[in-house]
């Protein structure tokens, strides 16, 4: 293990500013991806108190939809991407209808196990339908090129992803706080039985929540595919878990918290490798250790929002 003194030396004489800035942009770029996936995760949790373990696999399905749109149906990339997002929204609704709605009044643990089942189902379905060999995600030159700032080289996508994340963050906040649908979602989140009695269409609202949550995963998936252009049936597992961690760090159920958590996780992972290169094989472990520490000392996450528990 590296002691404090060694860490200090790394800070003082190791790294020049250009390298540090390069690391920082790498971290922001990765962090905004985590944030984008985490928003959808946390939104579904916020409304239903359900940790949707299939979120990462929904994300994987999107990348295949986009892949086949471009390669098999010869659609222009933007059409294919939009179609993939819509299809993923439909998939989310289907998943809710098939795997979660029948269990809505069952204990929470049953619905969580059902979520894990849904996750396995999607993964195996992808192996059968798309094959186990990885495929190359369509590349979009205008987005994946690099630009040079002095010694720092930055992929255009590095600017695009945080912007997309911020747009969707504000869009979602607007939807939740300033529209009728959003009000219904908040009412269902508080107490769906009472909301139902007050005339909210609970089934429709929950369906909408899943559609939006899955579409957010879809946007994350497309951004992920553009940045790491390799898609495989199990590709959603790690991003799904990382987004879950980001959501917990930020206080699960809290949308702004998920974005902050995503950035902390992304930048933290990069910095661990940057300053302690000998630990670079353990960067995933870092994320999980961080999760455990947060759960031990601040289980409500850094935003510290108290959510009335109904379990």
């Amino acid at each position, binding site marked *: 293990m590296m002691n404090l003194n060694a860490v200090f030396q790394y800070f003082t004489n190791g*790294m*020049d500013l250009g*390298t540090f800035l*390069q*690391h920082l942009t*790498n*971290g922001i*770029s*990765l962090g905004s991806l985590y944030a984008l996936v985490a928003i959808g995760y946390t939104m579904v949790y916020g409304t239903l108190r359900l940790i949707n*373990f299939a979120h990462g696999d929904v994300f994987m399905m999107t990348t295949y939809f986009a892949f086949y749109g471009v390669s098999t149906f010869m659609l222009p990339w933007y059409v294919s991407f939009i179609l993939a997002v819509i299809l993923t929204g439909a998939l989310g609704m289907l998943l809710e209808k098939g795997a979660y709605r029948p269990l809505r009044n069952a204990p*929470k*643990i049953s619905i*969580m*196990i059902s979520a*894990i089942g849904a*996750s*396995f189902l999607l*993964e*195996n379905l992808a*192996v059968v339908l798309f*094959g*186990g*060999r*990885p495929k*190359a995600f369509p*590349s979009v030159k205008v987005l*994946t090129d*690099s630009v040079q700032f002095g010694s720092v*080289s930055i*992929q255009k996508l590095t600017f695009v992803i945080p912007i997309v994340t911020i747009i969707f963050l504000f869009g979602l906040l607007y939807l939740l706080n300033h529209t009728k649908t959003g009000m219904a979602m908040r009412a269902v989140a508080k107490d769906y039985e009472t909301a139902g009695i007050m005339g909210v269409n609970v089934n429709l609202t929950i369906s909408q929540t899943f559609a939006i949550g899955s579409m957010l995963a879809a946007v994350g998936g497309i951004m992920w595919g553009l940045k*790491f*252009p*390799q898609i*495989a*049936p*199990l590709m959603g*597992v790690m991003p799904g*878990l990382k987004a*879950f961690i980001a959501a917990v760090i930020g206080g699960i159920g809290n949308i702004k918290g998920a974005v902050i958590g995503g950035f902390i996780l992304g930048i933290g*992972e*990069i*910095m*661990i*490798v*940057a300053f302690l*290169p*000998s630990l*670079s*094989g353990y*960067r*995933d472990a870092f994320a999980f250790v961080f*999760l*455990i520490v947060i*759960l031990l000392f601040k*289980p*409500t996450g850094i935003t510290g929002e*108290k*959510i009335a*528990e109904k*379990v």
Partner: protein
Amino acid sequence: MRKKASVLVSALLVGALVMTGCGTKAPSTPAPGSTGSSSSGDVIKIGVFEPMTGANAAGGALEVEGIKLANKLYPEVLGKKVELVLVDNKSDKVEAASAASRLVEKEKVSAIIGSWGSSLSMAAGDIVKTAQVPTVAASATNPLVTKNNDFYFRVCFIDPFQGKVMANYAFNKLNAKKVAIVQEVSSDYSIGLAKFFTDSFKQLTGDENAIVGVSNYNTGDQDFSAQLTNLKAKNPDVIFAPGNFTESSLLIKQARQLGIKAPIIGGDTWETPEFIDIGKDAVEGAVFSTFFTSEKPITPESEKFLAEYRKEYSGKEPAAVTALGYDAYIVILDAIKRANSADSVKIKEQLATTKNFAGAAGMITLDENGDAVKDAVIKQVKNGKFAFMDIVKAK
């Protein structure tokens, strides 16, 4: 509050379950028509354990292409039909061990072929040794696969040689003085090859500090920006990055995006179509060592293999590991013929004495460890294809 925490902790535990389970979900794919019967009767069973899903799926698929082609051309031995029993080891070490167990215990195969990936082969080592079933790896290059294991053989060269070949290439052809290494820490192949490269390169340069940086990543990682940014600051002449094809291809892509101009070289695992599909322009010029090239057929068997392969896969050129998969099958068949029996111990005895056997990827003589000594081929990605560059003699 406590309740909430406990829900989250249980969620975390379940999450961990999902993680550990991630390599174990795909259904295994037994060959059609396979039953639980033993090799006796009028079929001889040869087991094949290869990664058909997961991180190494493309490598496994290429090897299976060769094995199936060989089985099609040579479907019989000793007047009995040879039946292939294919099990998927899912690119996972635990699965590889259970796949091998299934082949020896349930399927009662006479011999086994596999696996792409040294770690996966090593995971099965003790099982085949205890069960006394001879196993031939097609392209697993780590020396430990066959070491202290009389029942494990291979039809390819080993990594001390491959490491030397690439160190020589970096030193003599690229005039490199300083090299940085990026290795896949979860792969025995990558770690071993990086070590042998390091030893040879230090010897060639006479410089203990010739390796300016070593970075690690895990199988399945997709983001290498931090590791590469660190190495960029060290300004190496060449980067040696042995590892799985998808990770390597993403790594090279990201290196180019970060403005790293140094040549990036690697090992035999790169030769899969996915490497070029994913890397596109970025992998243009990437150089690696491998086992065989279709541009230099070595034996009459090479000619036969190439002709049949091109017929079967309409004009596609075979990868080196496909030729080795083919060789692993015909070497076993030859041993069965000489043993005049489907008994696995007798087959093993004959395999160990394999000498000057003409395979598709060259002459095969197995040494006392059960390793083949063969020339290495250097290939380069040129215009989106793997192009032959050079042959390096074994001795």
